[in-house]
């Protein structure tokens, strides 16, 4: 609901809102420029003195105005010719032209009415409403994503467009809400919908009939500082019945030209004051700095428009059309999807196609449409559930848990829940876990235990598919390609073998950088820009499923390097470990911004086992700035898998690696990396207290062991791994 409230106004009003914001940002410069350019009145200058100076310089003066920037303009007639100038209050002499700036006038008319009169004003007001709806719905989405208002500034993970969109939004949203609400107020005021018209005192019935009282002796003018002046209008020459009219920040009044007496006065009304404040907040006239800030914030809107459209397109691309979808009442398998960005729908489509090919009738729908009473012929229900932000239900699963808890009893047909998520988030697959727990509490029979898919891994999905096939008694091969990126061909230049003597083949493979097209180099797409910790997808011969490996090198190193261990019967690892220099593989790059070392100065605690050393070695190799790095490296046997063992002494000598702690798990005294961590508990706790960042890479069991060890180490200092994760100081790359 909130998402569609954000998406549709955004897409429909994009052009209008962009025009509003660009013109508004350009206009925000003028009040500041005027403030700088306008000669300001000296402290304590009264209107009486100012008016007297101007009248001396321009005897035909008719009106003196002061704008909120402090600029004073005088209008006069000289021998029947109208004249006007910006006045230097120190001398009363004109110093600059008072003609309106034509470009500013053009921009103003574009900004408020698209040059289309009242129809255009209403269109722009609709644009302001869209802006307000976008700001509020966007703020709610950010809150949902980061897990509450308190985490408003929490670090973000995920694709670049989405991060940029939110980073800009959470700074700019205040200004955009302010600008759009004030715009709506001003529109209402322009169309006379607000009782904020000027209160003008009635013209005095009696005047002295005299003329020529000296300006610099009029009491009211003497008491009014120039900083409060808005307008002083002079009586018509030769008309003894006319009066001076004075407008100040406090109100409006008339002065007798023969006696200087105040004949009538009316204060500003409350509504007027409110409207004037709102006018100031919107235009920056009288609050030039605020205006500039609001203008800068408005500049974020076109950027958010572009990134927003990119997010929407990515979501659409990721959501395939499902062919041959059966009605819910006729299907044997009900497949319900809880997806936020749309990528989970792609998995649903693959599963739907495979089950349909196996002769099943399958219905695919959103989890929010859960209605078990309609599933007349269903034999099983499968839920594919992503998680939004800090454990919330994704968009297409809204209300599922409520519907489930409202059921008197759980459905009879058994349930399988598959969670989709990213292990680098603290709330990995939290929503799927909640759903599975709720189903269990309701007594819903399980078809399969809860399983999870990390970062859209096709392998995880294929493995789960085989388990599902077994449960159904059919052969189910799920080959899901989550929209393969553009691939490149990599040529092996060298390999270093490890462990051949202990029957455990592993190698560091180094490929030449593929040639990047001009477009890739300009946009940083593909292999034109990557760093250690990013992922490389290798598409093995004889399979459409890519396998992901962590990169051990950055673009700057001039090569593409990975660490591969040969698995028994592993198709891809078998092909890779058999490569000879000169052989080629098909590969693509997938960014993994959550697992970059980053540019900070805080110490790094790198923890890895086996081939998981790859990206960690890459971080150390790139550490030219001598950031303190503590590496905990677990291996089976120093002779078999001490990857990068030759480089380590050199890296330590150069200061790229501060400390190396190894743990060997095979041998007389088995020692795991988490044991090594516990052995250094004091030092690790000290580093973490001082802001160090933990990066873990390796197998799932090792990561779980490390998390337990860290929890023990952190408990005495009042920290937990969950807190570190929430702060982005504890990241994992686990397989």
């Amino acid at each position, binding site marked *: 609901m909130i998402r569609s409230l954000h998406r549709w106004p955004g897409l429909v009003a994009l052009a209008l809102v962009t025009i509003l914001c660009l013109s508004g940002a350009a206009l925000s410069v003028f009040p500041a420029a005027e403030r700088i350019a306008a000669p300001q009145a000296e402290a304590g200058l009264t209107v009486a003195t100012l008016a007297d100076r101007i009248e001396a310089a321009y005897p035909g003066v*008719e*009106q003196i105005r002061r704008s909120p920037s402090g600029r004073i303009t005088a*209008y006069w*007639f000289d021998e*029947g010719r*109208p004249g*006007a100038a910006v006045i230097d209050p120190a001398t009363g002499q004109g110093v600059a032209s008072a*003609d*309106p700036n*034509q470009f500013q*006038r053009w921009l103003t*008319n574009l900004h408020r009415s698209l040059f289309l*009169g*009242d129809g255009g004003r209403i269109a722009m007001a609709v644009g302001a409403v869209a802006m307000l709806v976008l700001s509020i719905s966007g703020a709610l989405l950010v809150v949902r994503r980061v897990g509450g208002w308190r985490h408003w500034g929490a670090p973000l993970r995920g694709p670049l467009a989405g991060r940029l969109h939110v980073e800009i939004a959470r700074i700019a949203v205040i200004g955009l809400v302010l600008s759009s609400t004030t715009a709506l107020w001003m529109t209402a*005021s*322009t*169309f*006379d919908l607000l009782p*904020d*018209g*000027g209160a*003008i005192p*009635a*013209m005095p019935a009696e005047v002295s009939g005299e003329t020529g009282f000296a300006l610099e002796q009029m009491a009211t003018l003497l008491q009014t500082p120039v900083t409060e002046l808005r307008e002083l*209008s002079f009586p*018509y020459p030769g008309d003894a*019945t006319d009066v001076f*009219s004075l407008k100040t920040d406090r109100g409006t009044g008339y002065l007798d030209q023969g006696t200087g007496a105040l004949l009538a006065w009316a204060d500003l009304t409350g509504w007027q004051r409110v409207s004037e404040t709102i006018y100031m907040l919107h235009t920056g006239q009288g609050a030039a700095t605020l205006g500039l800030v609001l203008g800068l914030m408005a500049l974020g809107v076109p950027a958010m428009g572009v990134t927003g459209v990119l997010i929407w397109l990515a979501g659409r691309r990721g959501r395939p059309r499902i062919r041959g979808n059966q009605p819910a009442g006729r299907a044997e398998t009900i497949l319900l999807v809880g997806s936020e960005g749309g990528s989970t729908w792609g998995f649903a489509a693959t599963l739907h196609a495979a089950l349909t090919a196996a002769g099943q009738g399958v219905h695919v729908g959103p989890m929010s449409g859960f209605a078990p009473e309609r599933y007349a012929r269903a034999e099983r229900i499968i839920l594919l559930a992503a998680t939004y932000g800090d454990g919330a239900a994704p968009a297409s699963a809204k209300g599922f848990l409520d519907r489930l808890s409202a059921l008197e009893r759980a459905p009879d047909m058994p349930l399988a829940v598959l969670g989709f998520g990213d292990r680098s988030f603290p709330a990995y697959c939290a929503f799927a876990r909640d759903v599975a727990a709720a189903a269990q509490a309701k007594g819903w029979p399980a078809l399969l235990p809860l399983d999870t898919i990390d970062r859209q891994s096709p392998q995880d999905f294929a493995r789960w598919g085989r388990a599902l096939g077994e449960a159904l008694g059919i052969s189910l091969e799920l080959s899901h390609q989550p929209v393969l990126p553009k691939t490149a061909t990599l040529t092996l230049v060298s390999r270093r073998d490890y462990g051949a003597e202990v029957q455990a083949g592993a190698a560091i493979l180094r490929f030449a950088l593929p040639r990047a097209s001009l477009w890739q180099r300009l946009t940083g797409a593909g292999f034109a820009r990557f760093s250690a910790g990013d992922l490389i997808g290798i598409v093995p011969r004889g399979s459409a499923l890519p396998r992901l490996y962590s990169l051990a090198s950055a673009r700057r190193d001039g090569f593409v390097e990975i660490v591969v261990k040969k698995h028994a019967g592993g198709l891809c690892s078998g092909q890779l470990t058999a490569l000879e220099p000169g052989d080629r593989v098909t590969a693509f790059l997938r960014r993994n911004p959550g697992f970059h070392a980053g540019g900070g100065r805080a110490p790094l605690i790198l923890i890895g086992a086996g081939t998981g050393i790859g990206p960690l070695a890459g971080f150390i190799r790139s550490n030219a700035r001598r950031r303190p790095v503590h590496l905990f490296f677990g291996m089976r046997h120093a002779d078999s898998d001490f990857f990068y063992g030759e480089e380590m002494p050199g890296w330590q000598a150069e200061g790229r690696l501060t400390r190396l702690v190894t743990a060997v798990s095979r041998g007389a005294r088995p020692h795991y990396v988490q044991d090594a961590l516990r052995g250094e508990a004091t030092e690790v706790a000290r580093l973490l207290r001082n802001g160090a960042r933990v990066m873990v890479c390796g197998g799932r069991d090792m990561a779980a062991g490390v998390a337990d060890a860290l929890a023990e180490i952190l408990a005495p200092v009042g920290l937990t791994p969950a807190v570190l994760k929430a702060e982005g100081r504890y990241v994992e790359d686990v397989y």
Partner: protein
Amino acid sequence: MKPLLATLALTTALTLPGLAMARPVTFTTTLNNYGGDGAYLALYVTDASGTYVGSLWMAGGKSKYYTHLTDWHRATGGDTGQVNGITGASVGAGRSLEITLDLADALFDAGYTLHIDAAVEDMRDSPNEVTVPLTASGAGATVPGRRYIASFKYDM
């Protein structure tokens, strides 16, 4: 134009006896290129003593800006009822405003004066932009305004 309403606007203000005699009068106001947004113009009539008697036309639809038509606003207290039904769009720089109204014969050669107040956003307020006595002999004569009006005349 709404001559009937215009007549009513004036007649109610004037309360002239024997109003049967009326004729169409065309007012032509041409603005100069003053380099600003559209001008608000108020056309109204005062009697021999300078007292406001009624409005003929208001060019400009947003009543919140009427305070800038200073003399008209003072005379009417900003009462939009005075221009109800005789309000049109503001007049752009260099453009002309031509209005034809059925006016009572009794308005002419009886000491009545026609005034035009003008105002432009972010520029000078110009009350009394044009002041011409309403006389049969003055018809067709062109007079200049003070700031925004290049020429004004009435024909009958």
